[in-house]
C-alpha cells in the first residue's frame, strides 16, 4: 500500500488533473457533470418547445427553429444526458462493485470521455449558424429525404454522431473487459450486483448497434456530398431503407437507455425494502432476453410504411413478446417490496415512482404495438407520451434516484433529505402534468413535431406546458442540492444506508482515490 501511494502520490492538480486523468472515479465524475450540464441545455430547448405550444398559432419562434429545437432536444437528451450519465455510474460503480482497482483500460477511458464535450460543442455550434440553415431539424430519427436536403446542420450532426459512436463503442469495450476480466476472486458472474449485469448486457448492445448507426449516417453523408444514392430515389435509392437501418439501431438503443436504469432500481429497492432482490436469476435472464428480442422488433416503428401483412404480424407479436420479460422485472421489484420493512428516503421514492410510471409507459407501448391501433396513434402525441413515460420517469428517474443513492458514498457527505423530498415531489407532479395529457392529445389526433395546432387541443397543451415548466425548474433544486452536498453536507458513514449490501459499502465515504488495489475476497 505504501509503495502504491508513493507511486501514485503525485496527481496533477487543477485542470490537468481532469484532462489527463485515468482514474475511474474522476472520469465517472466528469461524465456525470457533463450529463447534468447537458440536462439543462436540453431541458431549456424543451421549454422553448412547450412555450411555443402553450397556445395555438405561432408565438415565439418560427417553425424552422421549432424543428431545430425538437431535433436538438432529443439528440442531446439521448446522447448527451442519459447515455453519459449511465456511463458515469458505470465508471464509479462497476469497479467498486466487483472489487476491481479501476476500469480495464484506463487510458481509453479518458479518451472515451474527452471526445464527448467536443462532439456536443460541434453539434450545438450549429445553433449559431442560422444563415446556413441552423441546427439539424429533421427530427432525431434523421429520416431522408429531409436529411438529404437539409443545410449544414445535418453535416455537423453526422460528424458529431460519428464521434459519439466512437466514444460509446470504446466505453462499451471497456465495460465488457472490466466485468469479464477484473472481478475480485470469488465474484462469480451470478454473484454480480444487478447493476453490473445490466451494464454488461447494455455494453454488448452498444457494441452491436452503434456501428450500424455510424454506417447509416455515413451513407447519409455520402448521399449528401459524394454522389451516392443509398436513400435518394432519383438515383435508384430508397428512403425506406434508411428507416430499416435506423431502427435496427434505434430499438436496441432504447434498451440501451433503459437497461442500466433497471440495474440502478434493482440496487435501490432491496436496500430500502431491507430484503434481498426477489428472483435475481430471473432478473438476469429477463434482461438478456429483452436485449436479444430488441433486435427483432425494429419495424414496430414502421407499421405505417406499407409493410406486407406477414411483416406487420411478425413485428407485432415479437414486440408484444418483449412485454413478458419486462413484466417479470416489474413483478420482481414489486415482490421485493412485498412485506419488506420499507422506508422512503429520496432514492426509494424515485425507485418506486419508476416502477409505477415506467409500467404506464410499457402499457402505452403495448397499445402502440397493436398494428391497427398504431395506424391511428403513429406520429401523434400518444407516441410522445409513451416515450417520455419510459425515458423520463424511466431512465431519468432512475438516474436521479441513483444519484441520491450513491452521492453520499461518492462525496462523503449526506444530502439534505428535506430538499431531496421536495425535489422528488415537484418532479413527479410536474412530470405527470406535463406528459399525462399528451396521451389524450394523441388519441384525439394531435400530430407530433408540429409548432401549431387546432383549437380544440389548447387546454391539454396548456396543462402540459405548465407541467413542463414545473418539471424543468424543479431540476434547479437538484443542482443546488448536489453543490450543497459536495460543499457542506453532514459526514456520511461507510454504510450510508443500513439496508445496503455490496462491496462499495465496505469502503469509506468518500472512498480513497485508489480502491481495491488488492482484491477483496468475496465469499
Amino acid at each position, binding site marked *: 500500500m505504501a509503495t502504491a501511494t508513493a507511486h501514485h502520490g503525485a496527481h496533477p492538480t487543477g485542470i490537468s488533473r481532469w484532462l489527463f486523468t485515468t482514474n475511474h472515479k474522476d472520469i465517472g465524475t466528469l461524465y456525470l457533470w457533463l450529463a447534468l450540464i447537458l440536462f439543462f441545455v436540453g431541458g431549456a430547448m424543451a421549454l422553448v418547445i412547450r412555450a411555443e405550444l402553450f397556445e395555438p398559432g405561432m408565438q415565439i419562434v418560427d417553425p424552422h427553429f421549432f424543428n431545430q429545437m425538437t431535433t436538438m432536444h432529443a439528440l442531446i437528451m439521448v446522447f448527451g444526458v442519459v447515455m453519459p450519465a449511465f456511463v458515469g455510474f458505470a465508471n464509479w460503480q462497476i469497479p467498486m462493485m466487483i472489487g476491481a482497482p479501476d476500469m*480495464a*483500460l484506463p487510458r481509453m477511458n479518458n479518451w472515451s470521455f474527452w471526445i464527448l464535450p467536443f462532439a456536443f460543442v460541434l453539434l450545438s455550434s450549429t445553433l449559431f449558424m442560422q444563415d446556413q440553415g441552423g441546427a439539424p431539424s429533421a427530427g432525431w430519427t434523421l429520416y431522408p429525404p429531409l436529411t*438529404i*436536403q*437539409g*443545410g449544414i446542420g445535418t453535416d455537423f450532426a453526422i460528424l458529431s454522431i460519428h464521434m459519439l459512436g466512437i466514444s460509446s*463503442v470504446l466505453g*462499451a*469495450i471497456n465495460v*465488457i*473487459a472490466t466485468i*469479464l*476480466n*477484473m472481478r475480485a476472486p470469488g465474484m462469480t458472474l451470478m454473484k454480480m450486483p444487478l447493476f453490473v449485469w445490466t451494464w454488461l448486457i447494455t455494453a454488448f448492445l452498444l*457494441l*452491436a*448497434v*452503434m*456501428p*450500424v*448507426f*455510424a*454506417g*447509416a449516417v455515413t*451513407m447519409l453523408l455520402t*448521399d*449528401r*456530398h*459524394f*454522389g*451516392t*444514392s*443509398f436513400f*435518394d*430515389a*432519383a*438515383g*435508384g*435509392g*430508397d428512403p*425506406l*431503407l434508411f428507416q*430499416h*437501418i435506423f431502427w*435496427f439501431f434505434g430499438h436496441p438503443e432504447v434498451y440501451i437507455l433503459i437497461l442500466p436504469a433497471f440495474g440502478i432500481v434493482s440496487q435501490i429497492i432491496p436496500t430500502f425494502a431491507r430484503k434481498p432482490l426477489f428472483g435475481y436469476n430471473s432478473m438476469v435472464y429477463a434482461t438478456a432476453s429483452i436485449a436479444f428480442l430488441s433486435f427483432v422488433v425494429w419495424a414496430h416503428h414502421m407499421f405505417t410504411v*406499407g*409493410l*406486407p401483412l406477414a*411483416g406487420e404480424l411478425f413485428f407485432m407479436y415479437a414486440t408484444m413478446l418483449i412485454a413478458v420479460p419486462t413484466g417479470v422485472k416489474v413483478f420482481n421489484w414489486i415482490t421485493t417490496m412485498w412485506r419488506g420493512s420499507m422506508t422512503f428516503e429520496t432514492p426509494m421514492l424515485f425507485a418506486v415512482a419508476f416502477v409505477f410510471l415506467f409500467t404506464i409507459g410499457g402499457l402505452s407501448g403495448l397499445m402502440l404495438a397493436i398494428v391497427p391501433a398504431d395506424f391511428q396513434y403513429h406520429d401523434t402525441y400518444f407516441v410522445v407520451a409513451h416515450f417520455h413515460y419510459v425515458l423520463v420517469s424511466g431512465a431519468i428517474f432512475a438516474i436521479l434516484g441513483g444519484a441520491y443513492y450513491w452521492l453520499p458514498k461518492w462525496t462523503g457527505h449526506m444530502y439534505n433529505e428535506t430538499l431531496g423530498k421536495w425535489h422528488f415531489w415537484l418532479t413527479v407532479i410536474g412530470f405527470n402534468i406535463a406528459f399525462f395529457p399528451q396521451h389524450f392529445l394523441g388519441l384525439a389526433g394531435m400530430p407530433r413535431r408540429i409548432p401549431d395546432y387546432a383549437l380544440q387541443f389548447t387546454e391539454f397543451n396548456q396543462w402540459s406546458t405548465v407541467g413542463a415548466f414545473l418539471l424543468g425548474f424543479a431540476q434547479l433544486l437538484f443542482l443546488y442540492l448536489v453543490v450543497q452536498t459536495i460543499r457542506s453536507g453532514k459526514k456520511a458513514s461507510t454504510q450510508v444506508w443500513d439496508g445496503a449490501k455490496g462491496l462499495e459499502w465496505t469502503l469509506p465515504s468518500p472512498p480513497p482515490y485508489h480502491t481495491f488495489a488488492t482484491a477483496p475476497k468475496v465469499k
Partner: protein
Amino acid sequence: MARKKDIRQNNKRLVQKLAVVALAMFGFGFAMVPLYDVFCEITGINGKTGRVDAQAAAASKVDKSRTVTVEFTGHTSSGLPWEFKPLRKKIDVHPGQTVVVKYYARNMSDEAIIGQAVPSVTPGQAAEHFNKVECFCFSQQKLAPGEVKEMPVQFVVNPGLPRGVRTITLSYAFFNMDKASAKKYGAKGDRASNRNHRHQVKADPVVASGG
C-alpha cells in the same frame, strides 16, 4: 503480480475480439443495403416491377375469365420543370394480355434536361406480377427546350396475380438527373452533383429502380 500480467494479456485479447465485432457491425450496416434489395426482389414487396422480354410476354397465356383495371399516374419531383402525365387514366386488361399505353412529357424550360422516371406499383403484392416489356423508365430521357414526347410503356399482367387484386396502380416519379439543374428549378438541398450515382450508369430498369 502474476495476476496483473494475466489480466493485461486477457484484456488485450478480449479488446481485439470486441474491436472485430464493432468493425463487423459497421460492415453489417452497409451489408443491409444489398440484403434489402435482394429481400425486396424476392418478395416483390417494395412496389418494384418485374421485366420480361417481348417473346415471353407474347407466350404467356391470356386469362379471359378475369379483368384487371390498371390505373396510371405520375408526377415530377420539385426541380424538374416538365409537364408529365399519362395519356389515359386507366385501362381494363386480361391477365396475360400485352398492352401498350403512353405517357406525355413536355419540357417547359428553355434548356435541355435529362430526367429519370422511377416506377412503383400498388398494391405491393401485385408488383411482382406486373411485368414490363418496354418502358421509358428503362433509360434516362432527354428533352430539348420545349420538346414534347410521347413515351410508351408496354406491360403484361402475369396470370399468377392473386385473385383478390382487381385494381393495380402504376405510378411514376420523374426526377431531374442533374442536381445543379434540379436546385435551380426549385429542389431543396445543397448536394454535390450526382456524377457517380450508384445505379445511374446501368440502364437496366430493375436495377435503376431497385432501391
